[in-house]
């Protein structure tokens, strides 16, 4: 849903700057919220600091309000012409299995993709171990799943 509909040649000149700005604000937030520190995430998972609930709650509330308001206008996005919609992904066994595997990894390392990118920006060179691991894991599952077409019809987001 909501994928950009134009081809590369006719993309709006402000498309990439908007993506970049969104990423910068997003990454700054990951810094301010200390989510770039695996230690802070692990303290939440050890139930000794509930701050992460404020981070995820605040972020999803802001996003949710914008999604709800904009999707009700019936208008389309100015830079892509895409209809404003919600995040649509099908619920199947992989959602639970993948969530479980991600949960073990998050519980072991205290790191998730966005926070790891921001952590690198803060200058945390040690986080490269987590980034190498993530690419290896993503490649491993892609290698295995290349033999079937599961997810081929999945809608991008």
């Amino acid at each position, binding site marked *: 849903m909501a994928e*950009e509909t134009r081809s*590369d040649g006719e993309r709006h000149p*402000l*498309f990439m700057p*908007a*993506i*970049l*700005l969104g*990423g*910068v604000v*997003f*990454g*700054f*937030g*990951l810094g*301010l919220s*200390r989510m770039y*520190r695996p230690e802070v995430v*692990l303290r939440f998972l050890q139930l000794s*600091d509930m*701050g992460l609930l*404020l*981070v*995820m709650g*605040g*972020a999803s509330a*802001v*996003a*949710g309000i*914008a*999604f709800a308001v*904009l999707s009700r206008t019936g208008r389309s*996005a100015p830079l892509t012409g895409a209809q404003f919609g*919600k*995040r649509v*992904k099908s619920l199947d066994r*992989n959602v*639970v299995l*993948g969530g*479980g595997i991600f949960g*073990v*990894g998050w*519980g*072991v*390392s205290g*790191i998730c*993709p966005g926070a*790891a*990118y*921001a952590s690198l920006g*803060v*200058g945390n*060179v040690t986080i490269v171990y*987590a980034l190498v*691991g*993530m690419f290896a*894991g*993503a490649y491993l599952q*892609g290698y295995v799943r290349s033999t079937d077409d599961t997810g081929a019809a*999945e809608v991008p987001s």
Partner: protein
Amino acid sequence: MLAETLLPNGWLHYLLGGLFIGAGTVVIYATTGITAGASTFLESTLSYVSKRSRFQQFRFTSTRDWRVVFTLGIVLGGAIYGLTVGEFGWTTEVQWWRLLFGGVLVGVGTRLGKGCTSGHGVCGVGSLSETSLVNVATFVGIAIGTAQVVMALGVTP
């Protein structure tokens, strides 16, 4: 006080950080209609180097360029945080093998489960997507259990 027990390290930076994270997704959504997540970058970037069918799907090849820009934005946002209000050059004390092993599981799990803490946790929860709510409940529950086991085994940091 209850707040000091649950939030021994304060609350304002968590909430403000969360609002910035949400604002970053809104910048992208309001301009392009895209509900972005951070983990698809792993697979879409692998499409540049792997010919495996899983990575060569249109949903990865058609979005890989802006996902690189989004991720560079997150790194840049982390750097801006580190150089202004944060501590640039801070490094984690979590052991390298935890980051690497956890990272592999995060790479597998986020891709198999169709998203991570930003895609499902922020955009999906904000959309009140059933798929995302199931995924988030799964990974948060499993991660708390995993972190408790790791702590019980005496692994620090």
